[in-house]
């Protein structure tokens, strides 16, 4: 996809996504920071979103709020996920 360099946290999150969802033939550098993770971009679906939520809870202790719209924004791209982790991580 794109070759925009990832920040260390984005790289870490890309690895987490790839490992959690067992994505084959995808490396962190294949994921552009602003590219959509769901739908067209990386092609994740709603079940992947649940799984990713569980992975964020396990790794960073992040608890998401009951706000579907907010969560959709957090999960939009690598960079929005990184922003979420930066502000909300407890571990």
């Amino acid at each position, binding site marked *: 996809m794109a070759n925009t360099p990832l920040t260390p946290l984005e790289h870490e999150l890309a690895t987490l996504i790839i490992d959690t*969802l*067992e994505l084959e033939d995808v490396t962190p550098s294949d994921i552009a920071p602003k590219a959509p993770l769901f739908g067209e971009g990386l*092609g994740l679906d*709603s079940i992947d979103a649940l799984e990713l*939520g*569980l992975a964020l*809870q396990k790794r960073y202790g992040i608890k998401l709020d009951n706000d579907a719209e907010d969560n959709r924004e957090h999960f939009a791209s690598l960079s929005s996920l990184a922003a979420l982790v930066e502000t909300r991580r407890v571990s």
Partner: protein
Amino acid sequence: MLGMKIMLSIYRRFGELPFLIALAPVSVYYWCRNPLARRASKEYQRRFRATYPDKPLPRLTTLRHFMAFGVTMLDKVRALHGEVALSQIDNLDRETMREAIESKQGGVILVTHIGNHEICQALSSSRDDLRLSLLMHTHHAQKFNALLKESRRPGAVDIIEVTDIGPDTAQRLKERIDGGGFVVIAADREPIGEQGRARSLNFLGAPAAFPEGAFWLTLLLRCPVYLLICARDGKTFNVHFEPLGDSRGVKRRERDSWIGEQMQQFAQRLEHYCTRYPLQWFNFYPFWSEAPERQKAQQSPGVCSKQPSENAHG
């Protein structure tokens, strides 16, 4: 509902027999007014008779089926008011349940259209270490929450609406399980909303559409899975609690087949309990679909294919 209140007070004042006598005309009324439910009941009987000719159903089955439903409504309300005594409950799998609770591994408990799993609320109050999260439809959830506020162990039962399960809900459920608690999900309800995926499984001799949702959730929560049935047996309630499987360690490429196996097993056990409690199958909606291909592939197929690769027809 006024009718329910009147019926409940008849039961409380005069007992079971007058209640049943009053229930008969009420059932006839509903029988006349609900052609859809009547047809669903007839279809169930037809399939049941064809599959189990050696297990005779009583005469006037549809009407009796409606009456049994009336009785179960009463039981539900009584259970929620704490009027079902523990002495009325016969927990036939007490050991399995004890082990499941004491293992502290938590789990998903699948419940069904058979009988009346609300009765098990009474069981939950008998064990201080039993923590439950119930997934429910919104309008039910509000009613339940109001009733549960009056319960003596606030926090022991958590009601979650199932209209929209997002990552936040998954986290909440996972926390419950990690704490050794249980998540209760109705596994044979119609798929909720537009995102419901269903799989066609053989049930009483013909393919029926079973929703996949509960099984996907179970898979993601990585825990043991149990089946819970509570059905009336004369004046007592029988509780059945059995292990179905375990989603820990299921690899991504094994997910589809794991879900297929679990659903198949679930449908078989459901059928088994139908043969044991034939008139306590309380699904009055059309269940056997002529066109089981209702699976919706609105998710982008992208990374992995989660569409059932093969359906377990007949």
